Structure formats: structure tokens, C-alpha cells
């Protein structure tokens, strides 16, 4: 799951590392950090927003560890993959390492392949795959599609994208 966490750090050196280290320790994949140095809280602490991916079972333990080390966890929220798109790939999908193709999207941290249907009519015939990709927002979805376009191009797969649906009026 992708978590968005607001932390409050003391205004002394070394606090950011103190906050981020445990996330890595718990195998969290940090996707973004916003450090608002000039916006102090009434308590004199500095708010930091961190977005990371982590296994759900480890979240409570992580929060506890952060609090123990003096980092105040002000807010924890699950960042849902709100944008979604589906595409079709045609070509030698399996033989061009399908796992790698999916990995290229999943490893971004902001997008993932959440559905895959594959049709393989014969060994020498091109396969067809239907993929649903989810991402944190439309911007990240565009980035994920860019990655997929690049991968499809390199692996000589035909990528069929959906027409623009958000240009209104339909």
C-alpha cells in the first residue's frame, strides 16, 4: 500500500535522516519527501510529508518506532491509486519478458499493473494482452504510459492506448 505520512520534526540538524531511516528499515519504498522548512507548527516543529510504499502489516510497527525516536506522526493516510487506464499490447509479449514489462511500471512506486489478461493463440503467433494500470494521479499515469511506450517500442510490441476521454463533451 502507498502511505502518505505527515511527520513533525524538531528544528535541529539530523532530524530528517532520523525520520526516513526507519521507513527504509521496514522495507518501505520512499516515493517523495516534501520538507516545509519555513512553515513551523505552533509547537515549533517542522512538518514533513513523506509518501512511501510499505506492506500494510508493518505500518503500525513503523509508526511506533518513529514516535519512540522523537518524531511526531501527525497524520497517516493511505494514498489510493486514483487514476486508471487500460491498454492492449500485441506481439511476442511473453518471449520479450512480460515480467520485466510489468516490473518497469510497478517499480515506479507511483503506478502498478493491477490486471492482466493474456491470449496466446499459438507458439509462433503474436500474443495479445489487456492491461489495467493504476496510478496515484493522472500525471503519474502519463509517466507510467511514457515508460510503457518506451518498453513497447524497444520490444517491438504494438501498444494500443485508449482515446482521450477527458477532453470533454462525450
Amino acid at each position, binding site marked *: 500500500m502507498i502511505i502518505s505520512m505527515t511527520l513533525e520534526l524538531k528544528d535541529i540538524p539530523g532530524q530528517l535522516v532520523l525520520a526516513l531511516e526507519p521507513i527504509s528499515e521496514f522495507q518501505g519504498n520512499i516515493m517523495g519527501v516534501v520538507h516545509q522548512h519555513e512553515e513551523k507548527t505552533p509547537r515549533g516543529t517542522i512538518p514533513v510529508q513523506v509518501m512511501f510504499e510499505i506492506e500494510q502489516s508493518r505500518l503500525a510497527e513503523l509508526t511506533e518506532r518513529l514516535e519512540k525516536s522523537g518524531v511526531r506522526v501527525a497524520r497517516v493516510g493511505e494514498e489510493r491509486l486514483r487514476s486508471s487506464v487500460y491498454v492492449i499490447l500485441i506481439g511476442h509479449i511473453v518471449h520479450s519478458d512480460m515480467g520485466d514489462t510489468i516490473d518497469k511500471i510497478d517499480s515506479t512506486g507511483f503506478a502498478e499493473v493491477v490486471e492482466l*489478461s493474456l491470449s496466446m493463440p499459438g507458439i509462433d503467433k503474436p500474443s495479445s494482452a*489487456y492491461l489495467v494500470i493504476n496510478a496515484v494521479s493522472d500525471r503519474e499515469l502519463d509517466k507510467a504510459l511514457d515508460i510503457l511506450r518506451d518498453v513497447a517500442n524497444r520490444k517491438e510490441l504494438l501498444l494500443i492506448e*485508449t482515446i482521450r476521454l477527458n477532453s470533454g463533451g462525450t
Partner: protein
Amino acid sequence: MKTVRISLIGFGAVGQGVASTVLSKRDFLKKQGIDLRFVGITDSKGSEVDENGIDLEAAISRKKDTGSVATGDMTALEIIRNVKHEIMVDVTPTNIDDGEPGLGNMLSAFGAGRHVVTSNKGPLALRFSELNEAAEDNGLFFRYEATVAGAVPIFNLVHEALAGNTVTGIEGILNGTCNYILTRMTEERMPYKLALKEAQELGFAETDPTYDVGGIDAALKLVIIANSIFGTGATYHDVDVTGITKITPEALELASNNNSVIKLVCEAVNGTLKVAPRLVPKRHPLAVGGTLNVASIQTDLAGRITISGKGAGSIETASSILSDIIYIARHV
């Protein structure tokens, strides 16, 4: 009664369609106060010239009987330059290598002070700006509704009916052959090759289908749209083109299971021109079947306007040509 003299350059399926349409609309045109007089008709074998007006019925039956309209050997360029008339209608075949003979016909017509109406894509896809300038420099009309999407009035819609709007993007299906093939592959789960063969047997696809299935024809039409509507000066080389030859029945089935179809979509959005197979939701206005064409125009004032209709056929194409002729007749 206003007499408008016309030369008809090219007398194949479309040329004959124009002649028979004008014949069938004679009473209507009379009521409009327009007398269309054909003073020259040419085909590849020769020509007929009559400054008092050619008998169209006789011309059509002579073409059917002898294979040619010719009663003399005056060339197209000689007629365009030397026989007095107001509108030159070029319906010669599209040539995407150098645009000839259409390009020479059109430039000569503008040089001789004739308005031009055409269904010939080649010259427009290659040299749109030059042709448009030649028309403007000479204060002449240049009308080409029939070059894109047959009977569907895209240019009239944008330039006349939607005048004042800024068009921000256009998406469309502009090749009936591809649309037919993809529709049949979807409906009958046919492999691509079989659907292509069927299209060829029905006369929807040429013996060498590359021009259609490779997306070239659609790209040429998109170039004409980009030039006419966005004034971009684009050429065929500016279009990112992917055809339909790699589409599998399985891909169409996967799309269908998810309430979508695959269509060869032309897109002119944000300055980029693209022709590629795309997923279209089944209930989207672009999801038209068979040989139909469709264009969806995004505008700032009117919002999105979508029109669809027949993209080919001699009478359907003649509909657009006649509309252009009447437009000029009303304005001269």
C-alpha cells in the same frame, strides 16, 4: 438565372457521380436560380468540349458504352486554360508521390482565374499552403470538402457552421476500409487476412491495400484537416502513423470483453498528428461500425461536436462536390 460554367477533369466513378447528381438535381438547382453548365469533361483517353454545355446524359452513356467520354483530344490543361468557365472540378485519382495530374490542374486553374473544387487528396496533402495561397492571391475559391470523409461535411461544419469557434482538437475515423476490416474482425472473430480478403472482394479495399491498412490514406486526410483547420503547414511526414496490420482477433476480443472496440483513430491534438489503432469505449460516439467515417471536433464555444456518415462511394462523394459547387455558385 445565374449560369456557372464548369470543367470536369476526370470522369471515373466520382466524375460520373458528379454528372449524374447534377442531372438528378436539375429542378432543385433551377429553383435555386443556378444553371450549372459543363463546358469540358476529360478522362484518360481524351475529352469532350462544348461551350454551350455538354449533354451530361449522353456523356455518361458514351462513357459506359465506349469506355471513354472523349469526342476530341483537347487536354485537361488546354481546357482549363483556354475554355471559358468559372469552376474547375478536379476528380482525378490521388497520387501521393508528386500530386499529379491534380496539382498541375489546380495551379493552372488558379492561374487562369477558375475556382477549384476537388476530391483529390494528393495535391492538398503535399502542397496545401501553396494551393491555398494561389487561390487567395487570385481571389478565388478553393473548396475540397470531398477530400476527407466523403459525404461528411467536416470543413463546411468547422469553417461555416462553427465560425467563431476555436478548434482545440479533432479525432476521427477517416478510412472506411480499415473500419470495415476491424468491424468484421470484431463481429466474426476473423483473422486480419480474411477480413482484408472479404473487403477486397466487396470492392472496399484495393488489390494493394497498403495505402489503406498502413494508415497512409488516413494520415493524408489528417494532414489536410491540420492545414485547413489549424493552418499548421503540416505534411505527411509530420504524422506518426501506425496501421492495422498487426491487430489480432484476440486483441479485439480482449477489448470487447472490456466494453471497448479497436479503431484506427486519427488525432490532431496539441499540435501533434497521429494515426494509430486505439481503444474506444463501445458507447463512445467515435465507435462507428462498418465503412462509416466519423469526426469529433472539440471547440471552445460549442464544446464537442461529432458527425458521422459515409466516407466513400461515388454519389456520397458527389454530394460534397455538389455542395462546394453550389457554395461557389451562390457567392460569385
